């Protein structure tokens, strides 16, 4: 096999979030319009690995993905051992804006999946003029809890096994095996209680149903792409957001699940590229 080095650069930025200094790992590739990618709960920026290696994207976009503090190669802030990790809508918005500022991104496109798709709605609502466009993958305004998340962080269950086992069915039936299991591996590597802490935002604190109608797509275009086989954020939940947000554009992706960019990058790009084309044209 010929060795291949990906055109991806990884670095750390030290940034203040919630009054605490965080050492945040981010990767980037390409040049052009900044495309800031937000990973799902309990995972990390590796979910966007295919996007970094897609010349049709990187020839026009500077693709950036950061690991949220506590995730991937980003550290938790000093003193983390004294508290349980818990993500809130306010803290998550602050985090994304802090990273965008620290990297001096000029009106980036934000693209987030799952919790990233939910926070995308908050960004569209609270900071529309700071973004060129917002892309929500698997975006819903709320999800009704359907299992007890206490099980994700207990001494009588293995955190990696239970987190991956809990999300395994969210992957669509056509995902290639290598991508399916790479996606699950990221879940198996999450820190103790981190996935559970993210789900506090997703299932409790981050209920944006009453506010989505105030999103103004004239200030910032909103694109919503959702996989058909996602039962955490099923297509009907995304369509409900679109019904309430005037001007939002929806794509339902047949055969895909909750992690489109990671579980089946080849199929996902067919749905994403027309959106990116439109963003470039509008620009």
């Amino acid at each position, binding site marked *: 096999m010929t060795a291949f080095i990906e055109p991806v650069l990884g670095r750390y930025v030290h940034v203040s979030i919630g009054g605490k200094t965080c050492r945040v790992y981010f990767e980037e590739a390409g040049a052009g319009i900044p495309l800031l990618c937000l990973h799902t709960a309990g995972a990390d920026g590796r979910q966007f690995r295919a996007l970094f290696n897609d010349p049709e994207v990187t020839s026009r976009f500077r693709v950036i993905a950061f690991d949220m503090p506590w995730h991937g190669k980003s550290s938790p802030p000093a003193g983390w051992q004294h508290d349980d990790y818990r993500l809130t809508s306010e803290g998550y918005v602050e985090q994304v804006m802090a990273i965008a500022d620290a990297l001096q991104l000029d009106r980036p496109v934000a693209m987030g999946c799952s919790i990233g798709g939910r926070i995308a709605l908050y960004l569209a609502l609270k900071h529309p003029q700071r973004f060129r466009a917002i892309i929500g993958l698997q975006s819903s305004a709320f999800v009704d809890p359907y299992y007890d998340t206490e099980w994700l962080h207990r001494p009588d269950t293995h955190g990696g*096994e239970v987190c*991956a086992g*809990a999300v395994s*069915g*969210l992957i669509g039936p056509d995902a290639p095996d290598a991508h399916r299991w790479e996606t699950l591996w990221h879940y198996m590597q999450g820190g103790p209680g981190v996935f559970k802490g993210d789900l506090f935002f997703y299932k409790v604190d981050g209920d944006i149903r009453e506010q989505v109608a105030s999103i103004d797509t004239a200030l910032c275009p909103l694109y919503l792409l959702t996989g058909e086989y996602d039962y955490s954020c099923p297509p009907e939940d995304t369509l409900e957001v679109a019904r309430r947000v005037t001007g939002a554009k929806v794509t339902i992706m047949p055969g895909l699940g909750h992690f489109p960019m990671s579980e089946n990058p080849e199929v996902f790009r067919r749905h994403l590229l027309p959106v990116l084309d439109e963003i470039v044209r509008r620009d």
Partner: protein
Amino acid sequence: MLEGIAALVNQDPFLQRKGRFVDCVLMLESGDTRWRLTIHGGKIESIETGRFIMARHDVLMRASAETWERFWLSRPAPGYNDLFALLKKRLLTIEGNVQPFMANLFYFKGVLEMPRRLDAKAEA
């Protein structure tokens, strides 16, 4: 239908590796039908069906016969593709000691999805 899965589970290398610590009596309810699966070390030792008056079990999974039929299709429709999908749609309840289930999700999901292989064979 369920009786046919014991040999498949017991010969499946992935499930045997994942389930090697599973000791559990699982009661599966499908409408009026009940199956009791006795599992030791990940091996299904028996699958019984009957009325089970005062039967002992560790965990009970209950759904309608129609739900299980749709779940066991070789390519289930969205919403019927995973045990957690059924939980989300409130079509499945899981009662009893759920610790073995949650601690061994890959195993239990694999066992409960095994009838899909029988469905695929029936189609072929």
